[in-house]
């Protein structure tokens, strides 16, 4: 298992109950107070400890006789190489970040170990997929929709993108200040020791009768942007490999003179039109596309807070974020930007923030349990080599035609996938202007997702990363990075074929270089174009139009879309990938009769057998024909 978070906890529990006996689990994270209400294997007293280790201990309490090996480590560490992966029968992913998933996908391909994955389709809901080298598509055969759910600890403690700050501002801070008072909220918690502090926190957010609104605003400001950051900094482990945030206090902010304090703004408010209450307006900020400074954001934050308490007091306690609520968007934008300043994340305009804030799905806790159950069912089929019955299962948010869980046959490998096939890539680039560094950062790392890349031109090494390099090699590669391609020791120009390789991922691909003089700055900001690579949001090809019950048309985000017509009782899944073939669900899921039920039977019989000695054995019926019984998620 890779990942001991939301899905990971559910997965480990279900694996143990199902009789899996030898499980290895990798997770680099430590438990945060904010994990506790979702990741049910963890308790208050575990805060600060390794998720993988605590999850193991929690499961051993109800299943003492199984073997669980925890690794408190990053799955990208070189220790977890292809040989490491080869010792397992199946790898189960409970990860929620794209980079690590791509990395695990490559290692599984290289080790020839089946991988069970899950994720959002961005359209249909969640999906559980099975990736077996050569038999079904790999994790990277299909474009991935932008992830729309975020790990809670990223939101509460370690944001690295602006969207994390938006989620924090909208779902935690806004909800805490203006939403229902008794709701659970991750902002309730702030230090690792116990209930006394959460009591205190309640008091901070509660505005006392007649408490001066300016002072209250500054108190909230100092608490969430100052004190909470100081607290987070005290957990030094968290910041070992991360950029440390900077606490911001209201006293550090230089005041901004508000124009028209008693002018037309007051008149508008008297009119009672709530939509016209605006902190921007009272501060004379007009263009929503402007980027505000930290000072301006701070002033908008305090002003918006004040306006909520003075002009919209009746709604407080009942508000939930609405992207059409101007004041709410202003507040969330300002709060997100102040937090972004703390964490060294680029600021965004109100216009951009509004777009981001209006487009977020929460991870629903119950979904994790369902997904984990589906993953375990596929894992069992893999252990039985029940190849014919591997399924990818959509967990539909909105049932179409009575189907809530919709199994389809796994897609075939995408022949032009650069990860699992040997398709060469083509890179259009200006060889006289672009540096090797641009190629490494924008293509090899960002697009190809390589961790420890090596770049070769013929037999000449142009670039390499690793701990075992000699000093002169390191200096040489560093110098190469700053050179334009055509001036490298072994010049790279139009017609050159580069070999790019990641030894850890055992992924190797060829890139045909094509020189091009000009690039459109707006449309091609990278100044280079990679083709033969599946970008996010691939356009639909082969003319298949996809419609759904509610008449929505897809934007090519989903891997498969269901097509329904009134006359036809059968549901069709049309892969949007080029060359995909249509298939009927009703055919494929009823035609093949699974011997799955017999597995369940065997399991039970064996359980009865071993009841006497408190042990649970599963899938040990010899049909495996394989002595390896390790599960790695």
């Amino acid at each position, binding site marked *: 298992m890779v990942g001991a978070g939301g899905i990971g906890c*559910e997965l480990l*529990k*279900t694996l143990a*109950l199902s009789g899996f006996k030898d499980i290895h689990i990798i997770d680099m994270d430590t438990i945060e107070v904010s994990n506790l209400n*979702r990741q*049910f294997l963890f*308790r208050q007293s575990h805060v600060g400890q390794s998720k993988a280790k605590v999850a193991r201990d929690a*499961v051993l*309490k*109800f*299943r*003492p006789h199984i073997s669980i090996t925890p690794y408190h480590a990053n799955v990208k560490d070189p220790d977890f190489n292809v040989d490491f992966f080869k010792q397992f029968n199946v790898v189960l992913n409970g990860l929620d970040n794209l980079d690590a998933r791509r990395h695990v996908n490559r290692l599984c391909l290289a080790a020839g170990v089946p991988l069970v994955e899950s994720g959002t389709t961005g*359209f249909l809901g969640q999906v559980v997929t099975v990736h077996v080298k050569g038999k079904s598509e790999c994790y990277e055969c299909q474009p991935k929709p932008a992830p729309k759910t975020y790990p809670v600890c990223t939101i509460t403690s370690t944001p690295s993108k602006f969207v994390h700050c938006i989620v924090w501002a909208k779902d935690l801070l806004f*909800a805490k200040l203006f*939403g*229902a008072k008794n*709701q*659970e909220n991750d902002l309730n918690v702030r230090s690792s020791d116990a209930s006394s502090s959460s009591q205190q926190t309640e008091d901070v957010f509660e505005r006392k009768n007649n408490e001066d609104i300016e002072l209250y605003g500054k108190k909230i400001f100092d608490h969430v942007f100052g004190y909470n950051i100081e607290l987070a900094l005290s957990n030094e482990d968290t910041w070992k490999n991360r950029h440390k945030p900077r606490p911001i206090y209201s006293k550090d902010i230089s005041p901004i003179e508000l124009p028209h304090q008693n002018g037309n703004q007051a008149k508008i408010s008297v009119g009672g039109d709530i939509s016209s209450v605006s902190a921007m307006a009272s501060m004379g900020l007009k263009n929503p596309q402007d980027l505000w400074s930290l000072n301006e954001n701070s002033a908008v934050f305090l002003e918006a807070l004040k306006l909520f308490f003075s002009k919209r007091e009746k709604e407080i306690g*009942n508000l*939930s974020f609405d992207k059409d609520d101007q004041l709410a968007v202003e507040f969330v934008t300002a709060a997100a930007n102040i937090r972004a300043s703390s964490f060294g994340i680029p600021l965004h305009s109100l216009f951009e923030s509004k*777009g981001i804030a*209006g*487009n*977020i*799905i929460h991870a*629903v*806790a*119950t979904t994790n*349990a*369902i997904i984990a*159950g589906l993953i*375990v*069912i596929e894992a*069992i089929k893999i252990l039985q080599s029940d190849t014919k019955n591997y399924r990818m*299962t959509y967990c539909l*948010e*909105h*049932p179409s035609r*009575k*189907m*809530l*869980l*919709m*199994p389809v046959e796994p897609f075939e490998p995408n022949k032009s996938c650069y990860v699992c096939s040997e398709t060469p890539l083509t890179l259009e680039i200006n060889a006289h202007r672009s540096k090797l560094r641009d190629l490494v950062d924008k293509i090899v790392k960002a697009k190809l997702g390589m961790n420890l890349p090596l770049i070769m031109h013929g037999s000449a090494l142009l670039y390499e990363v690793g701990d075992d390099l000699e000093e002169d090699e390191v200096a040489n590669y560093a110098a190469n990075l700053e050179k334009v391609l055509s001036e490298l020791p072994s010049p790279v120009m139009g017609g050159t074929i580069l070999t790019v390789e990641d030894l850890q991922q055992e992924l190797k691909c060829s890139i045909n270089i094509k020189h091009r003089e000009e690039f459109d700055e*707006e449309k091609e900001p990278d100044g280079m174009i990679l083709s033969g690579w599946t970008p996010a*949001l691939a356009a639909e090809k082969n003319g298949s139009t996809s419609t759904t019950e*509610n008449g929505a048309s897809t*934007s090519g*985000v989903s891997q498969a879309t269901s097509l329904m017509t009134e006359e036809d*009782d059968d549901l069709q899944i049309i892969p949007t990938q080029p060359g995909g073939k249509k298939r009927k669900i009703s055919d494929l*899921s009823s035609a093949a*009769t*699974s011997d*799955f*039920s017999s597995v*369940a*039977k065997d*399991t*039970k019989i064996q*359980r009865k057998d071993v009841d006497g000695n408190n042990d649970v054995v599963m899938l040990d019926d010899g049909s495996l024909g394989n002595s390896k019984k390790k599960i790695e998620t």
Partner: protein
Amino acid sequence: MNGEELTEQETALYDRQIRVWGADAQRRLSKSHILVSGLKGTAIEFCKNIVLAGVGSVTLNDDRIVTEEILSANFLIPHDESVYSGKSLAELCCDSLKDFNPMVRVSVEKGELSNFDVDFFDKFDVVVLSSSTLSTKISVNEKCRKLLKRIAFYAVDCRDSCAEIFVDLQNYIYSKKQGDEAVECLLEYPSFEEAISVPWRSLPRRVSKLYLAMRVIEKFEELESRIPGESSDSDLPKVQKLRKQLSEAQSLDESQIPDSLLERLLEGRIEFPPVSAIIGGILGQEVIKALSGKGDPLKNFFFFDATDGKGIIEDISKQKP
């Protein structure tokens, strides 16, 4: 620039999917009271989910003493006899569930559910029966319906790698999002007794075979006074006989209920953990929908069979005249 526009468009287009429970829904959840009777694996999964979601209270009802078999499907109880000896299943689960979320009140109600009077149910918003007898399902469902307040009633059964969920929300009004507009929708649910008395001939076309098979097994256990799930494949001949009787009475071809399926259901006294996780999750989602008034609730049966992996909703209610 294009990316920006797409995001806006997506937002508008998929608005109904970009659901947010919101503060309002959470408040309703935190004020709700839930009764769960029968604590097998699926019910345990369900309890975990709603306790984590932050409901107001959960009342557990299961007086059984813990056995090895019960332990095998239960992740709430430590594998240590000194902890579980002398306590009922509900008491032990209660201790663990409290730990999950201190803001939820978890308590135990002892006694046989079918003996409780109508007033007892008045303090709940949701009643969930797991692995109950046919007569208990019918009587508890009727009692819930006699009260002025609307109680959401659910019955769940998992056998082998198959599962059935029954839902009765009585007359349920909710706002369904259609595009940008919210439309008031009324769903009229039949009681369990009404639903299962729908003649088999008038069931939806290609109704799940599980529905039919479950009715045969349920009836069998009722006639033989068995505890649900306490049958075995040695009962198969008797069950086949009952299938024949019922099919004839309903003028249905008995091959619609295959032997293999009956066999699996008869033997399936232990729930299959991955199926419990899935069904406990789906039941949790449904209860959260019903309590929060957000999302389209399922009407009125749900079936899952891990053999084909399909999770299917069936609407089994009398056709309006």
